[in-house]
């Protein structure tokens, strides 16, 4: 009879995946995550992008369509990125927790792709853009109702 396998000792180690977005802290009741952070930031700085432009757009439930608000934000992002062409950007797609893990990875990927395509249509060089999906693995708002879910259905533009 087969003996018990020893601990899988050597799963390849790698650096901890950290979210590099600095966001306003979200409070327990789910208010507070938005595009405004402390301080304004110098022109052309990542802080300026975060505070004055807005680094994220939100989606409806199980949707990857851009809302009017989302398009307005992305228009501002594209203008800023076209002005400061030295930056590369990473688009992170996210889903709320009211879906299955695997579908939500795909949904986050689809949301990220929609943002990549929109920015490209506004003149941002696609070679500057990469994307990834976190599915529902990295919520920013933690509560158990729609006030949080609506903030977690997002695509975040990370200026690198």
């Amino acid at each position, binding site marked *: 009879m087969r003996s018990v396998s020893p601990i899988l000792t050597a*799963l390849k180690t790698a650096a901890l995946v950290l979210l590099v977005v600095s966001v306003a802290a979200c409070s327990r009741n789910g208010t507070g995550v938005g595009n405004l952070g402390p301080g304004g930031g110098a022109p052309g700085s990542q802080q300026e992008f975060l505070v004055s432009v807005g680094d994220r757009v939100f989606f409806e439930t199980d949707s990857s369509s851009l809302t009017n608000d989302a398009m307005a934000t992305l228009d501002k992002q594209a203008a800023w990125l076209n002005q400061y062409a030295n930056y590369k950007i990473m688009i992170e797609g996210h889903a709320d927790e009211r879906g299955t*893990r695997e579908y939500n*990875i795909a949904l986050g990927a689809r949301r990220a792709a929609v943002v990549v395509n929109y920015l490209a249509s506004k003149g941002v060089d696609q070679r500057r853009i990469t994307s990834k999906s976190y599915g529902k693995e990295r919520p920013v708002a933690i509560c158990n109702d729609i006030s949080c879910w609506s903030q977690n259905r997002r695509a975040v533009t990370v200026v690198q």
Partner: protein
Amino acid sequence: MTILTRRDALKLGLAGGALAFATPSRALVEIVVSGGNFVPLPIAIPDFASSDASFGAEIAQIVRDNLKRSGLFAPLDPATLPVRVGDVSGTPDFATWRTTAVDALVMGSVERGGEVSSQVRVWDTQAAAQVVGKAYTTDAQNYRRIAHIVSDAIYSALSGGAGYFDTQVLFVAETGPKANRVKRLAIMDQDSANLQYLSAGKALTLTPRLSPRGDQVVFTSYEDGNPQVYVAGLGGQSKKLINNAPMSFAPRFSPDGNAVIFSVSNGGATNIYVAGVNGGKPTQLTDGTAIDTSPCYSPDGSRIVFESDRGGAPQIYIMGAGGGGAQRISYGEGTYSTPVWSPVGDLIAFTRQSGGQFQIGTMKPDGSGERILSASNSVQEGPTWAPNGRVVMFFRDPGGDAGPGLWSVDIWGRNEISIPTESFASDPSWSPLRA
């Protein structure tokens, strides 16, 4: 209604290794495992005879706990039994046992030295006949397995189906704040004993699945930044399955263990691919702009069930193993996700979202006979099958700052129970019966 008689069980019980003792006669006890008026079978299990009495008591308690947890048996409190220690050498005094309102009696013995050995006889107290008599050995470091093997023999003898106690559950152990959860691969026995952590949790690790022989793991990890599928032997090094996919995830082994089926997201579209377990160039099986994910082979490897939103919302489809010709099989209200084919082949388990609830259910491969086993306002998903195809395990997450836990329920929607884990736990994958 299915009635599994002990006559069927006798055939299984006599299939090998029987002790030469009483000649089994046609027995009367049966477990009716489906139907509305199910009553667990009362069974007496005295402590196992052993030169170390506490060891004999421990083994018997593991057996009682297993059988009770199955929902099919109601073991009596051993302190109330007329005989407190098992006797495998004689015939029970059936007149005494008939006063105890039990239908079945288990007499066992166990000893440990270089290895652990056990003898067990299952008696039908009403018919005054032996149902099964067997002897087993296992290695001493792993002594609890003897109790699981004995439990499987009892379960099989009295319910007519294969057991599922000598199994393990691979899962994701979750710790830390919800916004930055640490997720480690872990494995434990089906009764939560012998927990071992398999990874350090430096990278986000999701949806591990065991190979059909239980010796390999396939999972999704963010160790390269984006989600990618990895394969590892238990005790071995993990290796990325394929290169050049922007994102790959949702892996499962083929029934022969030689291939892995999974999803690739590229440019917003998610399609299904298959690759050899050692990598190599993958074969694309679906092609479109929709999300096709959570693929799973039928046990004979001829078909693939998967989830797709090609019709507008997530539903379950079946296609041939070579791709193409996908047919939708789910038509109830709401959406359907995470289809998993039973190892027995007769049912497909799924996650359904309907009316604000998350439901775990089953349907036949032709889409008929849908049955909801568990419904909750909390997120619950990710069904996995016990190897006998009678029990489904899944995870439920109450939301907020709380975390997920493992649950199981039988295919008749009965006996929903929590599976204890020392941390939050998700993404269970039930092993086959251990060899």
